[in-house]
């Protein structure tokens, strides 16, 4: 998995590529939490993510909780069919902002 960070004003965008699994999810979690140290709004571009397991959902839930507690936002862009299926199955479609 690779993560590229870009900042535009008060928004940090993390472009994620590859598998978000038990090995890589801690890195995603760290990047999301680090981003909230710098600003209140984080966007995740999931265009190149085809695989996410519960370890990845854990990182996203922590991100969402952090966003809410800081009065910020977490948006997820370009979610593909497999990831959407996982979001629907886990109820995450209702608690995340998937754009």
């Amino acid at each position, binding site marked *: 998995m690779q993560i590229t960070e870009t900042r535009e004003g008060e928004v940090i965008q993390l472009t994620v590529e590859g598998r978000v*699994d*038990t*090995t890589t999810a801690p890195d995603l979690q760290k990047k999301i939490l680090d981003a909230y140290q710098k600003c209140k709004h984080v966007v995740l571009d999931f265009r190149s993510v*085809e*695989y*996410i*397991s*519960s*370890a990845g*959902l*854990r990182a996203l*839930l*922590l991100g*969402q*909780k952090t966003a*809410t507690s800081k009065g910020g936002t977490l948006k997820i862009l370009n979610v593909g*069919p*497999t990831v959407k*299926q*996982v979001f629907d*199955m*886990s*109820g995450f479609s*209702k*608690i*995340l902002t998937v754009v």
Partner: protein
Amino acid sequence: MEKKVELRLPATDETLMDVQNTMETLLRKNGCPETHIMPILIAAEEIFINIAHYAYEGKAGEAVVVIEVTPNNFKATFRDRGMPYNPLAKEDPDITLSAQERKIGGLGVFMVKESMDKVNYEYTDGWNIFTMEKKF
């Protein structure tokens, strides 16, 4: 065409890829639709990683994974000799709660139950045996 494979390997984060690669190859060779492959591989991660992290109390112990693909059906059996643990006995998370109310974790086995057609656990002769099946 090979339709049944048995893998005996140490259960670790690293060997998960061996299990998933073998599974994916077998599924593709036997015409499993693309939409089913990823959910099956994700379910395999959830079960295998539970063995890797918890069955042998953090130490790497052996896992035996049997993958069988027959026309229109996938079946995987995961066996370990770690401490007896029935993942299906765990209460399902409440997926209707808000993000703030939801607890971190507990989703893995729930997703396996949701994505597979049939799951089963038994403890026999010192082995934890978890089976999951999906029609395609």
